[in-house]
Each structure stands twice: as structure tokens, then as C-alpha cells.
């Protein structure tokens, strides 16, 4: 079984209102030294073991580009690992 761990975040330069709100909250809790925060979404896909690593990567990328992220505003990264049941 392949496991893809995917993180989707806003691209640099796009003001993320959620991250800004968290940063503001941290500031009022006394963590004024936090310079920047990135917020995002995390996904974990389990792909069947019959796929080659290349095929599993290709499918992960396709899913990220097609639906899990919006390339206009977001970028994604992933880690693929083989797990033994």
C-alpha cells in the first residue's frame, strides 16, 4: 500500500486571512515574536499496492492539481511512502 501525505497551502504573496487571524491571536496571547504563520490543509491518500511508485506519484500529482488544490491561489507538496499492512 502506498500512502501519500499531501499539504496544500496558499502561494507566497497571497494574504491568507486565516493565518493572519491566528498570528493576531498569538500576539494577544503574548507570542509577539511569531513573525509569520502558514496555514493549510492536510490530506492522506491510501493507494493500492498494485501501483508502481511512478504511477502512484503520477496519480497523487494529478489529484492534487485537479481537485485538492486550486493552482490559481494554492501550491501543494506531498510525501509518498510504502506501508506494509
Amino acid at each position, binding site marked *: 500500500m502506498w500512502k501519500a501525505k499531501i499539504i496544500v497551502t496558499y502561494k507566497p504573496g497571497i494574504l491568507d*486571512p486565516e493565518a493572519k487571524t491566528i498570528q493576531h491571536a498569538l500576539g494577544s496571547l503574548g507570542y509577539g515574536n511569531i513573525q509569520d504563520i502558514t496555514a493549510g490543509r492536510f490530506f492522506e491518500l491510501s493507494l493500492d499496492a498494485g501501483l508502481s511508485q511512478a504511477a502512484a506519484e503520477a496519480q497523487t500529482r494529478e489529484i492534487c492539481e485537479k*481537485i485538492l488544490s*486550486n493552482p*490559481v491561489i494554492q501550491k501543494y507538496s506531498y510525501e509518498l511512502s510504502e506501508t506494509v499492512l
Partner: protein
Amino acid sequence: MKFGIVVFPGSNCDHDTYHVIRKVLGADVFYIWHKETSLRLFDAIILPGGFSYGDYLRVGAVARFSPVMKEIVQYAKEGGPVLGICNGFQILLESGLLPGALIPNEKMRFLCQDVHLKVINHATRFSKQYTEGQVLRMPIAHYSGNYFADDDTLKRLQDQERIALQYCDAEGNVTAAANPNGSKLNIAGIYNEYKNVLGMMPHPERAAEAVLGSEDGLGMFKSLLERN
């Protein structure tokens, strides 16, 4: 003239829009279930507001893969008029029919309030009833109405006169103070290149009867009703 209103799971302004077209304008209108695959019968398509698929993942992200969207993309490419209101606008952006994206409001609040809008481009089939620069009052009701596009896209929208509506004050001044959600260039609505597709965050269907406080949205539907 037959209007079609697309119904996704989670649409909730479909009945309001239907009411305005049938009862206020007296025109023919039909619901289109999102699994429909033919739009040949219709002279204009409306994607209504709501929370299609619970807004899961991103607003409009799941709805754009509904079977009907493939037909709507084709319908729009053939020149058919498509109006996306609120969640409908979000779906049009996700589907690529319009450029840019809508992200959560700058202040991370759901906004439900009347806004003023400046009509920028009045000569289209959505806005013939309005005059250039006319100030409209309509409600907004959204959490993700903060329009974003990169600088090249914004410049293209300006150069091609594709900005349809901008948030403004009561006198029509487009100011930062009149921008409720952080949208780039105070954008409340944009056209596609051929101006047969309009996406907008405000709700014209909620401002189409005097008893509801404003009739300013009615012109949008009346414009569509006018024969070209």
C-alpha cells in the same frame, strides 16, 4: 425565453431566483438538476447561491465536477449567457470559465449586509437596463467573497473592460472603506472575455421587489429577458 436554474446539492437561492423570474418578471423558468446533461432548451442559465456540497474542500470545488458543468462550459463557449451568483460565481471560477479565485473574507467573518455597487460595463446582456456608473444597492451574504487574481489577470480584466461591478459607497466612489471583504480592485463581479458569462458575489434575486427594500437587482434579469 426560457431560464434554467441549476440545482446542486446544497444550493439554497434557487427558489428565490425562480420566484423572481416567474412571479416578478412572469417569464418561463425551470430547475436543472446537477446531473442533467442537456441544456439545449434554455436561453439563459443561472448558477444560484448556496453551499454546494457543503463548501467542502473549497467553495465550488466539488460542484464543478457535477455532470451539468461540462455542459455549462460548452454552453458558455457557444455564447449562451451564464450568470453565477455568489456560490455560482465561486463555481464558475473553479471551473475555469472565469479567471481568479475567491478566498475567505479579509476579516474572517460571514458578511450579511447591503452593499453599494457601481455598474462598470452597462452594454452587456446582463446590464443593458442599467446606465454606466449607476449605483445599485443589493445584499451580500458570504464567507468567501474576497476576490483574488494575480496582477497580470487584473490588468487584463481592466484592459478588456471585464469588471462588471465594484463595491463603492452610496455616491459611487470606489474606496477601500467601501470594500467589505478585501477583494482586489473592489471587484464584486466580472465577465468572461466575450461577456456572455457573469459571476458576481451580491444577490440580485434578493433585491428584486420593493417590499424587500430594493429593486436594483431586477435589472439584471430584465436585461437577460430583452431580446438581443
